[in-house]
């Protein structure tokens, strides 16, 4: 089972060797009521302590596969299922400081059954989570 907020606290972690962090990882629960083909996910923007990491430059790990922003649109088969988390991999030399951070996200989801002017629709979340090391 996942935490109820789209932003998950467990899994928030720096990436790369201890002394040479290359970025961080953030887990996000599928916030929609159905699982979506990746081509309907128009990326996830991450903001940590007011510094923005745009959707277009983040990577997206779903199970064994990692997608660039552009590769999302091409993935019309694999789904991000309900009850699972995607990992957003964010490039940030040095990683994030150990401690509590204010993390915000904007997930853009394209719902084909929404009127065209509401596509994509954003899902926002915002909470404090912690980098342990």
């Amino acid at each position, binding site marked *: *089972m*996942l*935490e*109820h907020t789209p932003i998950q606290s467990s899994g928030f972690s720096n990436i790369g060797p201890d002394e040479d962090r290359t970025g961080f990882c953030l887990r996000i*629960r*599928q916030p929609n*009521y*159905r*699982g*979506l*083909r990746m*081509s*309907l996910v*128009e990326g996830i923007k991450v903001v940590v302590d007011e510094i923005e990491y745009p959707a277009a430059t983040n990577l997206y790990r779903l199970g064994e596969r990692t997608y660039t922003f552009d590769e999302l*649109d*091409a993935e*019309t088969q694999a*789904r991000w*299922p*309900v*009850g*699972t988390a995607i990992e957003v991999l964010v490039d940030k030399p040095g990683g994030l400081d150990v401690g509590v951070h204010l993390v915000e996200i904007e997930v853009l989801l*394209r719902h*084909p*059954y*929404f*009127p*065209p*002017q*509401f*596509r994509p629709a954003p899902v*926002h979340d915002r909470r404090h989570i912690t980098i342990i090391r």
Partner: protein
Amino acid sequence: MTSHFQYGVSLYSYTDDFGTVMDLEDAFYHVSETGSTGIEILGETHLPAYPQLETAWLDRWFGLLDKYRLEPTNFASWIDTDIQRRRDMTVEEGARQLTTDLELASRLGFKFVRPKFGVIDEELTPHPIWEGCVERVLDLAAKLDIIIIPEIHSPTPIRHPVVEGYIDFIQRTGTKHFGLLIDTGIFQDRPLPFWQHETPEMRDGAMSFLNGIKVPVEQLAEVIEYTPFIQAKFHHIDEELHDHNIPWEKVIPALKSLGYSGYLSSEYEGKRDPWVAIEQVRRQHALIRKLEREWEQANPSKPKEQRDA
């Protein structure tokens, strides 16, 4: 066959609970505790390996149906016409999607498949591939004995070109495997609370349907012959068993008078705080059963006559 309603729950009701506080068996338990006989699922939500079906999961599915004495009712399907940023689905792709879902639904024992087509305008006009997609799978639906039922959902009312298009299709093809799913949200006659970030300007504009499109329940008579399944959409029922948005005291007598004896499948769509949906669905079942009982007591012989007519 009974002249009473059949009661069910769509697992859509437990959105956000599912996968955070509730697994599939928990959901079965809560549905069965409402006294329901039917369970509705969403393919892309409740099949963990969708569109694959793992054998172990299939065994579990039938085990749960048996343990909780529930029958599969409707299987929700999506035809994602706007599949890529610069490309729409073709008729072939759409038909393939629908084939996948019909076959999954059949293997799981469902009687209905609700395809949700992408739309092309604010009126929710379905993407023009809808008709070709459905026509290509009608034989399969007949073979599997499944009825394909697109949903009449707010802001689309009963008297609308979209509905006319579906009825024309039924009349033109003469099919018995296509019909309408009525979502009771079309009868909403009092406003929903504002959603987070919604402003009065938005509510007056594109979101005005959230105030309720107030379809008169009498108009059910015009489509009931094409309607084998109803989703009992609702948003909030308070501690006095009073629904804040849907006029059940009109909807239930209308359905009873028309002799409807299909499913009412609960679709709770309100506050998503954890565990709230469980109690809300229970209140809806208490309320609808009470209204049905009251109507039957006031009209002791009518439902049978209607059915025999």
